[in-house]
């Protein structure tokens, strides 16, 4: 099974990457000037108090020892305790992860729809003004990063035409007792579409801001791939059978054109997830990224470590999923 071997090799490489990332964060944040412990204590605290608390968080040991202890904890599923929030890092991080996941996935869905529609329209109307307009639009969308799109959306849909919420994840006034952190998912399962609408109204702008650059990339890559496919013999043969140009594109060209696009979208999706950090801040959305910035500002070392490792893990999982989807969609690999 060469396929299985590929996956195993990928997993091994992933572990090395994660380990490297852990070492780097660990070292970098321990060079932080300013004592995080001193910041936690009331002004009257003595040197003794500080020393005791440092020992409590293990900060009195050498970096190497600290790393070994931390790594030992991680292996057992213990990421330490947040200094600023005084709770286990794992609980904090897992509590925020669903919010970020929902936002990222919603952004991905939007990007795939917009980008896909642009690519299909551009292929259908290739070599016309419509295609030129699509090219210009996607070029612009790609030139400007999510942060700026977020601000522009705030102006458009928060100020000029205030139809969406510009901050938070859910309206505080909403009378709904969430059982999980997957708010959007839960609201659908419990058939509370009023709650769902409120959530979507909060997520619309941040997810669109994240989606715009990715949509542009999908539009460009997929259109190029589609246009190349349109010249192939099996596409022509389908045309002679009586299919319309639109059906030929969606039925024959699309399944093939998607494959080369897919691998590239994987990397781009990790960039999108990275973008949630600032977008969540911009929209005061209570996700992982927003928590990360607070953790940095509060010098909360264990929390920063936990969040960064979680992001790294998320990125590698995304890449792995993309590889497996690619293999599953490609008959040549599936039966290899």
């Amino acid at each position, binding site marked *: 099974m060469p396929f299985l071997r590929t996956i195993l090799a990928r997993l091994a490489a992933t572990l090395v990457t994660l380990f*490297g990332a852990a070492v780097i*964060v660990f070292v*970098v944040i321990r060079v932080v000037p300013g004592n995080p412990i001193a910041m936690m204590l009331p002004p009257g605290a003595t040197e003794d108090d500080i020393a005791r608390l440092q020992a409590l968080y293990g900060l009195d040991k050498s970096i190497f020892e600290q790393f070994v202890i931390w790594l030992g904890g991680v292996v057992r599923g213990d990421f330490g305790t947040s200094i600023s929030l005084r709770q286990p890092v794992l609980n904090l991080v897992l509590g925020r992860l669903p919010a970020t996941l929902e936002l990222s996935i919603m952004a991905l869905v939007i990007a795939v729809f917009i980008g896909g529609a642009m690519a299909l329209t551009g292929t259908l109307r290739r070599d016309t003004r419509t295609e030129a307009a699509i090219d210009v639009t996607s070029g612009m969308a790609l*030139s*400007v990063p999510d*942060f*700026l799109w977020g601000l522009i959306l705030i102006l458009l849909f928060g100020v000029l035409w205030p139809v969406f919420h510009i901050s938070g994840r859910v309206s505080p006034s909403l009378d709904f007792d969430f059982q999980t952190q997957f708010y959007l998912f839960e609201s659908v399962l419990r058939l509370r579409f009023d709650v769902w609408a409120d959530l979507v109204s909060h997520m619309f702008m941040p997810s669109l801001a994240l989606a715009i650059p990715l949509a542009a990339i999908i539009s460009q890559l997929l259109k190029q791939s589609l246009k190349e496919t349109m010249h192939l013999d099996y596409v022509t043969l389908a045309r002679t059978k009586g299919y319309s140009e639109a059906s030929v594109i969606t039925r024959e060209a699309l399944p093939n054109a998607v494959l080369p696009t897919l691998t590239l979208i994987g990397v781009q999706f990790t960039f999108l997830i990275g973008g949630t*950090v600032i977008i969540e801040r911009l929209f005061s959305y209570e996700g992982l990224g927003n928590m990360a910035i607070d953790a*940095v500002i509060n010098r909360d070392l264990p929390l920063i470590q936990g969040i960064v490792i979680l992001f790294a893990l998320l*990125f590698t999982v995304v890449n792995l999923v993309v590889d497996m989807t690619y293999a599953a969609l490609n008959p040549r690999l599936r039966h290899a």
Partner: protein
Amino acid sequence: MRDARSRVRRPIGLRLWLSGGWITLLIIGAVLAPLIAPHDPLYQDLFAGRMPPVWVDGADPNFLLGTDSLGRDVLSRILYGARLALTVALVAGTLTCLIGATLGLIAGYYRGWVDMVISRLVDIWMAFPPVLFAILLIAVLGTGLTSIIIAIVVIDWTRFARVVRAEAMTQGTMDYVASAQVVGRTKAGTMFAEILPNVLPTIVALLTLEMGIAVIVEAILSFVNLSISTDAPTWGGMIAEGRTSVHQAWWVLVFPLITLFLTVLSFSQLGEGLKDYFDPVLR
């Protein structure tokens, strides 16, 4: 091969003119800021807070683009903010380019264990969300211009390393490289004399793109209040303030945002345009 590339050139397109024009304008504005800025960018006048731009009713003609909540002149702050933005773009962009391109060139041309190490580092870097990484570095290094520049170099060198490595790899396999070595050049000599000139167009285009990215990173850092000192005029800082008072004083957000938007768009279009201009074979 190299000659063919530089000979086939297209006319400079409209987008090169427009984006180049905007950046030139911005450079002039930044350099001449002390002469042309109508006000001191730090001067606060609480009685003149949140004055709208001149064409809106109730404006003070002294403040062309209005004032922020502390009565500081928006136009003057944008002009002074351009100094920081462009300094960061130029210095951080160039340093990132030098370091990243060198590592990429070495990895792509020498291959072997050097390549292994550099590629592995790139992989690890790709596992960090860049914005979070930058914020973390600023927290470690402390705020200030030098810290911003270091942070940008540290998070973005991989962008150059990745692309240049791939290009150097393809160039390295071509015949003219082998023949250059037969002629008797050293390996390093070949790298600088034969490979570098061929990847240079890509590097220049990437550098231009990187300048736009540096401007954005600086804006993001000042947006989360981690750039330079708190009341110094920065586009990101103005945007952060404008974001909180957007319902009372839209102009505090809108004008720095437009400036930032045009600047980032121009750098990026300039980069894309240069890529087409240098490279007859579109990639």
